[in-house]
């Protein structure tokens, strides 16, 4: 029917379906923004995750006995040197610690004024199936007063926040789909009512329900594709603008996330998906209505 361009029902002259492409364009526009947002958040989360996962900080809680603290530090360093999963480690000396604290306690403190923990930055080998708990258990077995911070708590909170936004975007997508389906159902039902007599004739001369439903489905597909492309044309410049705006705001928090080919494919698939939703909805609506006929 699409190929021959011939239809037994004058669906292309229906006034009531004229607004459908615009509505679908709006839906596609929104869904592209929602999906793009989801992709950005997802990429951000995994970048943070990768950036932090290979690192942990070993902290040696200070006591009054400076010599003993030094001995514990050496003990820890010995363990780290022999640990198979450790790629690199770096013990911060006291002067660097004091410099790190300067913004809070001022420039006047000297070595020994404050009980400062000793910190060791540990970088792990990428390929190990390491758990922070394993290394931590081995360290605290050998040395007393050692704490390990793998930044999980901090990262988990951020990831949870991002997941919440992603869920929100999914809900938006779901609503968009429902609104599209509802609109197409309404449009199709109106079409069925308008062409009731012609449909009855087709039915009586032996047209199968599929034959009639296909005409509505191809019409909905055509309108859906038109609307989808319109939505895509509107969404892409908007997306480009938003990306530039975000990049200029804070480059450190939101690293410049280039979309890969898969991401573009997903965004370009949105109008096609919406068009197919429109087509299927129209078909199912017609079939359900016709099933009531004798």
């Amino acid at each position, binding site marked *: 029917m699409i190929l021959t361009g011939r239809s037994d029902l004058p669906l292309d002259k229906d006034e009531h379906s004229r607004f459908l492409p615009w509505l679908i364009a709006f839906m596609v526009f929104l869904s592209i923004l929602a999906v793009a947002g989801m992709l950005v958040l997802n990429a951000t989360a995994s970048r943070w995750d990768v950036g932090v996962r290979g690192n942990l900080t070993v902290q040696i809680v200070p006591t009054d006995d400076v010599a003993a603290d030094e001995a514990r530090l050496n003990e820890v360093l010995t363990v780290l040197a022999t640990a198979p999963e450790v790629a690199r480690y770096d013990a911060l000396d006291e002067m660097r610690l004091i410099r790190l604290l300067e913004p809070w306690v001022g420039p006047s403190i000297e070595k020994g004024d404050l009980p400062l923990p000793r910190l060791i930055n540990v970088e792990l080998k990428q390929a190990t199936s390491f758990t922070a708990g394993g290394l931590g258990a081995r360290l605290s077995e050998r040395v007393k007063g050692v704490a390990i911070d793998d930044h999980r708590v901090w990262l988990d909170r951020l990831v949870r926040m991002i997941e919440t936004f992603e869920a929100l975007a999914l809900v938006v997508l779901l609503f968009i789909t429902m609104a599209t389906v509802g609109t197409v159902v309404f449009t199709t039902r109106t079409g069925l009512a308008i062409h009731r007599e*012609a449909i009855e*004739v087709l039915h*009586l*001369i*032996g*047209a*199968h*329900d599929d*034959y009639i439903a296909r005409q509505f489905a191809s019409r909905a597909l055509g309108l859906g594709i038109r609307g989808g492309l319109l939505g895509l044309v509107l969404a892409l410049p908007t997306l480009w603008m938003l990306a530039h705006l975000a990049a200029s705001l804070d480059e450190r928090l939101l690293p410049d996330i280039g979309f890969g080919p898969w991401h573009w494919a997903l965004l370009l698939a949105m109008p096609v998906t919406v068009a197919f939703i429109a087509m299927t909805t129209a078909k199912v609506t017609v079939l359900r209505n016709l099933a009531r006929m*004798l």
Partner: protein
Amino acid sequence: MIPENDEPIVRFENIGLRYGLGREVLKDVSFALAPGSFHFLVGESGAGKSSLLKLIYLALRPTRGKISLFGHEIASTPRDDLSALRRQIGVVFQEFKLLNHLSAFDNVALPMRVARAKRKDVDRHVTELLAWVGLKDHMQARPPTLSGGQQQRVAIARAVISRPSLLLADEPTGNVDDQMGLRLIHLFEELNRLGTSVIIATHSEQLVERLGYSQLQLTDGRLAIIPGRAEAASAVAASAETAAEAEEIQNQHPDSRRVIAGEEDLYENASGVESYL
């Protein structure tokens, strides 16, 4: 779905029909039509002729009773299979029911397209048939631009285009002049000769009298079957002692001889029909 041998093409058993809570329009209607039969459906306006036809072309379900078409009992036939049965029935609706947005050509082509006929065949058959009913120059005309008679011929062409096993016509000659009316009846007779069973609902006593086929007579929702002259004659002939008696009866009803003998000259005008059929 070809009917088995001797299986009636239409069988009604104790059919009753009422619309909503109204009075019964059809009452205990029972009959069986043999394949290849030709019947007139007669009765006053409101006697239930159109309702009876609607039951046959599956636009209505009876309130009670059992209908079988081509050997299939309708009530127990899956809905999906009904469209195949409908495709074997050609209907000339009283109000034509042409699709006004389609050309005469496309209207006539519909049953073939619905049955997924090849485009080449559709073009050839539709062109020939429209030419035969005298609408060669109006193929691309939309029904609203055609006269009542022309619309009726489009409707008839649509009903017969796919050579149905059963042809139902509701007042098919009401809007055409006598000559065209006769021509259309010849078309129906020609189809009937080729195996199509025909039921024509009509008010024209002249037509019924002239052709002498069996009648399904509806009176206030009740059906009576009046045998045609051919059947009457052959029934008498069978019981008659000699063939001479039968001959005598036929001579008393000269019109019946045409039906029995199938005189070819009356089909002169219909000669083009067989090529498309």
